[in-house]
């Protein structure tokens, strides 16, 4: 009994830290609809800035509180700066482009933090009061954990008062419900958005400073906290603060109890919780269906077929690609092979994100399933390459069909997060089921047979990937594609004319899953091995970045995005030790210059740098 109580209290303390990060994220999303990927970086900056301030202050409680508040102010200022300099310029851009921009910020801040504070973990010496414990039923329990338990509700209450009792809070709540209406009533959106960002960033910074007594400021904090924070926000219901607190408590307590019952489960418990909650309550615990923001709906213009000039350019590029092995060296050839695989991976995600209207944060799941399907076929069945490659899309498509049935009922960020949950569960299975998948050591020795040398394998990959991408494109111009787009633009009207939107979305999901699976199967052969990292969040983000870079609402977008991102990545990796900052800066430049993506930029008349106009 005592043990249970101790675990419960420990879980509550963890929940408070989670809540602080998630609270800022949910407030920002509620008002601005920005999926702020850089929120974890602000948390990390909070820890580092907090360390710098607190290690210079005396070690008493008053100074600690002062230091934490100062840290909050500092990250608040940084957050506002990011909003004013960057995000403000792209609110009118298609949905999720802001995510791409904040991803660029993540990359830049990672290198900046390392450059300023160095690579070593920084620990804050704890004063006696931070090290002390109180006796609870004969067990020692840290005083600081009790303080944290109180901090969560305290912050929740403060923000609630702010929202309920001030004019600013009323405006924020109104904007969360309908921001166009608030704007129409004459409220300055710019100031409102900046102030909301300041609040969110401040909370993230305070959260970062508050973990210092329990651990260290280190360079892995940003990414380790961001997915958990998103999970809390989504489980609670987007934009709902109370929901976020409930979700944080639910996850924190389950995590703490899970450690006792099933220690290995810590890998995946938060994602299982999220998947269960979203399947039962598609809008989270306390969330409401989001009102559509009107600017977004207008941004989706029908996709025009490619112009003759574009087709000629594509044909020329293809000829060049076919001839490539005769021209370039082996390393460039291997990069080109990677690019063909990336093209199919991105094109398959584009089917979901563009015409399907379903952003997926877990697309690597299908890629990984294909890769593991191929590798296992080679290793346990000794399957020849054609058969092993055939199994990849079947394995991935089959699982996508089953998962998809649950996923397509949802929409927006909820849908995206459910795909992320599934991807994490698949990842955990690959990671944990060592007897079959080799665990994190992966499956090695999946090399192409002797008859498929680097050049032949490149051609195989080119045919399958570019062929696959062309088939996907064909499907989107077929009646299926038009019906899919109709379901996206208005599910109600689509249903009225006899279409079945969910079945169409499921078909698109399965199609995209199979295509990604094929890309994964090829990747297994190209690298000679498969590891759980192919299913990681980072790999899913790669796919998102490629699609968004190229432009969601064009057919050429994912292809151009895949080429640009893979090429850029390799070039920068070889050119500079600060490749993350350089890559982040390139992403920001592209986002600001071409808010419709690179390919989208060429389609907009009158944009600087556009080389042709659509007729």
């Amino acid at each position, binding site marked *: 009994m005592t043990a249970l109580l101790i675990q419960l209290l*420990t879980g509550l303390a963890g929940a408070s830290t989670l809540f602080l990060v998630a609270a800022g994220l949910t407030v920002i999303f509620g008002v601005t609809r920005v999926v702020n990927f850089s929120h974890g970086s602000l948390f990390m900056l909070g820890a580092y800035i907090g360390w710098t301030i607190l290690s210079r202050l005396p070690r008493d409680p008053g100074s600690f509180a002062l230091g934490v508040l100062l840290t909050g102010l500092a990250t608040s200022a940084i957050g506002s700066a990011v909003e004013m300099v960057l995000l403000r310029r792209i609110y009118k851009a298609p949905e999720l482009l802001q995510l791409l921009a904040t991803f660029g910020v993540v990359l830049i801040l990672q290198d900046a933090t390392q450059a300023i504070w160095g690579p070593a973990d920084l620990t804050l010496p704890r004063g006696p009061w931070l090290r002390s414990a109180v006796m609870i039923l004969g067990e020692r329990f840290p005083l600081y954990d009790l303080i944290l338990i109180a901090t969560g509700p305290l912050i929740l209450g403060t923000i609630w008062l702010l929202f309920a009792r001030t004019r600013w809070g009323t405006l924020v709540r109104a904007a969360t419900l309908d921001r166009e209406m608030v704007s129409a009533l004459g409220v300055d959106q710019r100031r409102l958005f900046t102030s909301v960002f300041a609040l969110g960033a401040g909370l993230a910074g305070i959260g970062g400073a508050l973990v210092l007594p329990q651990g260290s400021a280190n360079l892995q904090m940003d990414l380790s906290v961001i997915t958990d924070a998103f999970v809390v926000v989504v489980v609670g219901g987007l934009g709902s603060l109370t929901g976020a607190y409930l979700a944080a408590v639910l996850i924190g307590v389950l995590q703490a109890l899970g450690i006792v019952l099933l220690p290995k489960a810590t890998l995946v418990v938060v994602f299982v919780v999220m998947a269960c909650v979203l399947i039962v309550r598609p809008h989270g615990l306390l969330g409401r269906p989001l009102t559509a923001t009107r600017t977004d709906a207008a941004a989706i213009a029908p996709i025009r077929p490619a112009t003759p000039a574009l087709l000629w350019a594509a044909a020329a590029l293809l000829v060049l690609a076919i001839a490539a092995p005769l021209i370039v060296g082996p390393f460039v050839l291997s990069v080109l092979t990677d690019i063909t695989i990336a093209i199919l991976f991105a094109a398959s995600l584009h089917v979901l994100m563009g015409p399907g209207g379903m952003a997926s944060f877990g697309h690597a799941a299908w890629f990984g399933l294909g890769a593991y399907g191929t590798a296992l076929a080679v290793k346990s069945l000794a399957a020849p390459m054609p058969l092993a490659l055939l199994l990849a899309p079947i394995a991935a498509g089959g699982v996508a069909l089953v998962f998809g049935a649950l996923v397509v009922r949802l929409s927006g960020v909820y849908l995206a997060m459910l795909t992320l949950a599934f991807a994490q569960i698949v990842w955990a299975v690959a990671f944990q089921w060592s007897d079959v998948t080799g*665990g994190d050591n992966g499956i090695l020795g999946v090399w192409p047979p002797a008859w498929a040398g680097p050049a032949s394998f490149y051609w195989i990959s080119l045919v399958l990937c570019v062929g696959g991408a062309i088939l996907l494109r064909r499907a989107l111009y077929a009646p299926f594609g038009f019906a899919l787009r109709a379901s996206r633009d208005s599910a109600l009207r689509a249903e009225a004319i006899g279409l079945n939107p969910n079945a169409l979305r499921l078909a698109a999901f399965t199609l995209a899953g199979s295509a990604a699976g094929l890309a994964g199967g090829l990747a297994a052969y190209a*690298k000679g091995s498969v590891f759980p990292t192919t299913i990681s969040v980072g790999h899913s983000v790669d796919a998102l970045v490629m699609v968004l870079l190229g432009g969601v609402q064009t057919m050429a977008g994912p292809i151009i995005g895949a080429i640009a991102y893979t090429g850029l990545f390799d070039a920068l990796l070889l050119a500079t030790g600060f490749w993350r900052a350089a890559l982040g800066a390139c992403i920001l430049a592209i986002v600001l210059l071409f808010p419709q993506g690179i390919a989208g930029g060429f389609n907009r008349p009158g944009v600087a740098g556009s080389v042709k106009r659509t007729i």
Partner: protein
Amino acid sequence: MQLSRRTLLAASATLASPLAAPSIVRAQGNAPIRIGEINSYTAAPAFTLPYRNGLQLAVEQINAGDGLLGRKIELLIRDDAGKPADAVRLAGELVTDQKVDVLAGGFLSNVGLALSDYALQNKKLFIAGEPLTDALVWDKGHRYGFRLRPSTYMQAAMLVEDAAKLPAKRWATVAPNYEYGTSTVKWFKQLLLAKRPDVVFVADQLPTLGKIDAGATVAALEQAKPDAILNVTFGPDLTNFVRQGNTRGLFEGRAVVSVLTGEPEYLDPLAEETPDGWYVTGYPNTSVTDPANTAFIAAYKAKFNELPKMGSVVGYALIASIAAGIAKTGSVETEAMASGFPGTTFATPFGKVTWRAQDHQSTLGTYVGRTALKNGKGAMVDWRYVDGADALPSDAMVKTLRPA
């Protein structure tokens, strides 16, 4: 995309054959010997940046002297960002484009295995520095793969010496949930039970790497009421674990055996919270007065103005091991090196080390001692150096473990 190729240099290097007349070796002239190194510089900077310093110091020292086979060494460094797929692609770049003579590097076990498999497929020598997985030299070991650091088996074997002498009967373990963690726990249990059949393991905690929920983990261990604890966590996880353990009194009246905790990169962040009397493996850098180590520290401090960490030693020894292997082989031709490296002895800050012929594991050892708090900082005391050769299983057992 950077497409720079140095085919001219490379052609002369790869065509060189050990069986050819010495005149051909001389004819290679001044073309540098190229070592391609891949590591997780952005994913694990706390370890890999001091490691890179060690590499650079060693290369600089060799080049300032007579060089290697009368040639300079050129080091090409790449960042795999912690991803095996990226590591394999970069290996391709280094081998096919930059025409490196030897591949080296690796931090995470899976990256090391991916690179090792690439080396086997492409018949190129790969010298792993840090990856600790036993698979690298045993079940996935092969002719072209070598590994420098003491493996998980060796680290566990070194600590079991002390653990077996403890009166503790009830043991609990805490390890990061991936190959390094699970493998260390597996060996520790096996080796300890062999010496002490009366021991029982009462709890196993497997926190996710980098995301330990320290409070709950400590409480769960406390609940199992063990007499002693094996800790395998490191880095930020270790700091969180130690802080919660100190406050909640987990370590009071209990023996703790802890892998890697004595290494400066992981001990320094513990600072004044360093627990007293843990049995650890590590590197008590300044207190080792062996001339090889003091000379290394002096040179390192002169160049980088800080004390070397364990990573620095690994990086430095890695270059030393490659240089010695090439010097003994007298060539940089892969097949010749694969035959020439085994049995080579080289000097490291920890003393003389040999590349074992039976499994391509080096005999580099590590220091085993106890933690203590000195002037508000963590330190290792009562330490002894354990030679890697003494922590390895019998040749007969190695034979069963290594199919290749």
